[in-house]
């Protein structure tokens, strides 16, 4: 399906940018409400665990508040943002670097279907099964920035595509948010640079929602209290583990050395904690859920 630039359906905000796309191809059910409050969420394809955690947390809270999450359907931060939005029951728009008939990257077919099944939109200015190319990515980025009131950069290296989107957002005079990360991580260099240049620092979802005149959903602010509730029935070792992991994610070997128990006993405890839903394990390290 196509929406032309002179159609009343065409998103107002997008018209205001330099060289807006003449027509938008789309899949899904077009509803102008979806364009009302958009936030572009961008970041590295090579996302760190930290990036993943933050994307999940921020996006699910922001999407729950009714903001549409716009992203680029790439793996890494993009895909995580789409997924988090869908899981939170929110709206999401995927702006493709290729024609809408093509699923790129291919293995995200399930995500593509999920977006369409959950009243999301797949859009592109490219026709049919136009393949992605080097030049289509920055052009896709201008649509993302153009659709959105604000852009949120989760993780970005220096010289990354996310910084192009950030620069475009600035050019269109939209708000720019960046998530601070560790100084040591190469995936934080881009975001830190943005902050240095004056992008707004994001510490919680509230920082972004304020810009839309919204507040974070109530029940989430109470989450911290509820998670500490079953604390009392945990064993001493389990409490000890949680305390350590709140400071930083650790490997099982480090944990067993700290707690001075065998790898066997630590393994048993960690498996059971995982099953209780207290921890998750990613790339060999344990995280508090």
């Amino acid at each position: 399906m196509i929406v032309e630039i002179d159609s009343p359906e065409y998103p107002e905000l997008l018209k205001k940018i330099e060289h807006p796309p003449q027509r938008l191809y789309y899949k899904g059910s077009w509803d102008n409400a979806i364009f009302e409050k958009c936030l572009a969420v961008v970041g590295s394809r090579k996302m760190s665990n930290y990036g993943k955690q933050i994307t999940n947390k921020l996006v699910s809270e922001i999407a729950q508040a009714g903001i549409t999450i716009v992203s680029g359907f790439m793996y890494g931060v993009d895909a995580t943002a789409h997924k988090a939005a869908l899981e939170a029951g929110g709206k999401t728009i995927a702006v493709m670097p290729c024609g809408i008939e093509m699923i790129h990257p291919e293995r995200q077919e399930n995500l593509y279907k999920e977006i369409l099944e959950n009243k999301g939109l797949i859009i592109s200015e490219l026709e049919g099964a136009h393949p992605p190319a080097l030049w289509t990515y920055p052009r896709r980025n201008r649509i993302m920035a153009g659709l959105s009131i604000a852009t949120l950069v989760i993780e970005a290296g220096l010289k990354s595509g996310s910084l192009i989107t950030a620069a475009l957002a600035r050019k269109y005079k939209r708000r720019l948010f960046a998530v601070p990360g560790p100084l040591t991580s190469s995936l934080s260099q881009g975001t830190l640079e943005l902050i240095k240049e004056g992008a707004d620092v994001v510490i919680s979802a509230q920082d972004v929602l304020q810009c839309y005149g919204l507040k974070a959903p109530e029940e989430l602010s109470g989450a911290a209290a509820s998670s500490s509730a079953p604390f009392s029935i945990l064993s001493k070792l389990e409490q000890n583990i949680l305390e350590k992991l709140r400071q930083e994610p650790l490997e099982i070997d480090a944990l067993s050395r700290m707690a001075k128990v065998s790898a066997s006993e630590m393994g048993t405890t960690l498996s059971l904690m995982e099953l209780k839903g207290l921890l998750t394990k990613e790339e060999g390290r344990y995280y508090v859920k």
Partner: protein
Amino acid sequence: MLSRVSSASNLGLETIPVEVEVNLAERGLPAFEIVGLPSKAVDESKERVKTAIVNSGIEFPTRRITVNLAPADVPKEGSFYDLPIAVGILSLTRQCRLPKSSLFFGELSLEGTVRHTKGALLLALCAKERGIKNIFVPEPSANEAAIIEGVNVYPVESLNQLLAYLSGEIELLPAEYREANQAQAPVEAEFDIAEILGQEQAKRAMEISAGGGHNLFMIGSPGAGKTMLARALPGILPLLAERESLEVTKVYSASGRIPPQGSMIKIRPFRAPHHTISPVGLIGGGTNPQPGEVSLAHRGVLFLDEFNEFPRSVLEALRQPMEDGHLTISRSRKRASFPSRFMLIASANPCPCGYLYHPGKPCLCSQREIEKYRKRVSGPILDRIDLHVEVPVVDVKEFSHEQEVKKSAELSSQIRMRVVKAREMQRERFIKEGIHTNAEMKNKQIKKYCSLSKEVRQVLLQAMRTFKLSARSYFKMIKVTRTIADLEGSQGITVAHMAEALQYRPKTQNEG
């Protein structure tokens, strides 16, 4: 004039009797011919026999000599027909009588002495099976042959010595089997597992792997210590049991890997072929089928470092021997069966550059490259590996108080004690099943020997959902749990055992 000497032919691990017929013709020009499908090595025997006889100070008959190796339609391989041919010729020229019910076997040197020859053990086995009383083998190989009881193994040093015995001039006593001393146990000394810093979980995985004969897959960045861990494994493995030992020694005898004066192999083999190995090198083969690495690792460890770098064809060829514990190599003219019940220890980097998840170095690979790299190992192979463990990079600074850590780390010998006990429990358990270890259990046996209480089953089912485990993983987890319980000496399986086993579940390859 015709004489008949008995010998044998090795085909893989099987041995068939061969009769060596030697004829000195009354007429005709002097010549020396061998018939009966001799290979190049057998044909060259003519020169060795002739020179050895002459150098022993014996006259070589200038007559037409015809040697027939019967049955004539089976191809003959190897150099060990030298001795029977020489004995056949000399028995005719010197008129000495050959002892009854005897096999002759051995390669001659040009000076007339007899050399160490591969396959002596198999010859002795063949003699025993067929009720042959005496075998004459090279002196260096006599100990290997003497492993088999009930056969008189006569150690032959040279042609002259043998002739003297045959003509009754000297006495020759059958060799008695001598167990080799401890100097033949070099693997144990390589290093102790306690010397590896940190890696508590990986060490525990090694212990479980050794305890139940489970295959193990290690993932970790370069320098994390994967190879070191694998090399420490022989130190925590129990020695081979009597029957296993004979199985292993047979394979090594067939491929000529038993040193002169060698005895039974007691230590579990550890094989670590490089990833440039060919399928035939790994599985075995050749026109005269030879055992490959999988058979040389029988009852021991096959360590494949850089697992993802092995060509796919090589890895896929592993499937059948892993599943069946033996394999048959069929060639147009010959086929041979070899055992191949080994523990597979595989190790791989997490990505092509190796530094994914590394705390200090950035990974330079794209998502696509990583996926492609991981897909090189097929699902069916990973499915056959019970234990999966991550080996993180150890920060050496953390271990500046090295002495203290070393004291607290368990020694190989301590771990081995638990492993030996666990294996003992398994031996008793499977005494009627014809298997040795938990890893070999089939689903039916798992149901019979690993009854799970309601609680334990619930934990496993919950884990299946939470961790999205496959149905095959379900059974793998139970097998591993059984081994963990065995290591503790426990007959029953508890929730704690199951929870620990879940640590070693297969890692989902593409999350996200």
